[in-house]
């Protein structure tokens, strides 16, 4: 039976199961943010993934890799440190494939992240909130050393993380755009930036790679010394042309601008990369600026970011204590 012609082909596609449907996210132009007609800003909306974040790509890649190398088989307990999204993605995939999952996560994350993990059956171990993700990494490494029965994908040091973007995110961008003047990525594990940057640079060495880095609130910097700082092993800083920090305040301001000016309901890290994308675009004469919006705003609703003013969020301490990355 002949149906109406689709406006946008191909459509979302047909997949064997939910895990296979990961990726293929829409690339949406941010017309209101464009500083001049010759410069266009595009955002890949990773909220369209099954659990609502870019980490679905990474979790699938790491589990596929571990299965392919024989490191895991169903029944094997997986352990992973996370600030939330990777844990949630792993929880969905592990549930589908039959792997018990234990995640180590800072205690000050939003309630939604705990609820989603519990929903998919993951066990949660909390790490000290004031140490942020660094504390979760340290605790998970201790647990893995003490109990060799765990398998830890370890997103911070696993090449399957950037590979998910090299073989996925970046290819999808290049399918849609003939040239990319600049790519802006948030810096968490470094996976999005490293994997996407390598592929984009291969396609055009002139593409500028810009990292947007979170400036955590002071109360999330509760480390004992600077030596407790953590740099994910997969990060190769030489791939970056610029690395700019974004305060929680600016990230929230731009998250609200995304809603007001573009109608996009995104997570706070998307606000951060939007801010830097606009800045990079303002320095260009022409070309496409591409960024990745890691997730939607659903998991941050309880923080009040979308309903309170920035001044209220400053006054009640949210901007200093919340963990958005």
């Amino acid at each position, binding site marked *: 039976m002949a149906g109406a012609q689709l406006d946008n082909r191909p459509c979302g596609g047909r997949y064997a199961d939910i895990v296979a449907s990961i990726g293929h996210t829409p690339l949406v132009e941010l017309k209101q943010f464009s500083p001049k007609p010759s410069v266009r800003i595009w955002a890949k909306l990773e909220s369209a993934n099954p659990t609502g974040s870019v980490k679905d790509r990474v979790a699938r890649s790491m589990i596929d890799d571990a299965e392919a190398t024989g490191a895991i088989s169903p029944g094997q307990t997986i352990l992973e440190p*996370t*600030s939330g999204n990777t844990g949630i993605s792993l929880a969905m995939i592990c549930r589908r494939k039959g792997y018990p999952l234990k995640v180590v996560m800072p205690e000050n994350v939003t309630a939604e992240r705990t609820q989603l993990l519990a929903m998919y059956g993951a066990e949660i171990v909390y790490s000290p909130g004031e140490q942020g993700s*660094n504390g979760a990494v340290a605790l998970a490494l201790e647990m893995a050393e003490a109990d060799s029965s765990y398998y830890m994908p370890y*997103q*911070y040091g696993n090449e399957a993380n950037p590979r998910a973007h090299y073989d996925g995110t970046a290819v999808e961008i290049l399918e849609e755009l003939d040239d990319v003047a600049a790519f802006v990525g948030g810096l*968490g*594990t470094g996976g999005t930036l490293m994997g996407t940057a390598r592929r984009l640079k291969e396609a055009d060495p002139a593409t500028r790679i810009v990292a947007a880095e979170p400036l955590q609130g002071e109360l*999330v910097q509760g480390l004992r010394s600077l030596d407790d700082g953590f740099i*994910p092993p997969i990060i190769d800083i030489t791939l970056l042309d610029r*690395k700019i920090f974004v305060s929680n305040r600016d990230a929230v301001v731009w998250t609200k601008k995304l809603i007001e000016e573009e109608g996009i309901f995104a997570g706070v890290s998307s606000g951060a990369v939007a801010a830097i994308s606009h800045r990079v675009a303002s320095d260009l004469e022409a070309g496409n600026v591409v960024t990745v919006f890691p997730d939607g705003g659903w998991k941050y609703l309880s923080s009040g970011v979308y309903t309170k003013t920035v001044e209220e969020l400053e006054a009640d301490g949210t901007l200093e204590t919340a963990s958005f990355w």
Partner: protein
Amino acid sequence: MPTAKIPPVLRSSTGGEKEVAVDGATVGDALRSLASQHADTERQLFGEGGELNRYVNVYLNDEDVRVLDGLDTAVGASDTLVILPAMAGG
């Protein structure tokens, strides 16, 4: 004079000061100026060879100096150096 912003983790080494006025025309000189005023910061900021501690990020205003010219990055009188421990996400 440039200003160095001190992260919470370093404030026990600066007598609780959140900002310190520093001297120097480069990032390296400015950080050594900080270390000369507050000796306990030196071991945390620099490695044994005088290089920037691997786990310390230093930003000139808001750009990471490692992606600029490192410790040789020029600093102006009205600039701010932000010192932060490297933090992960994910």
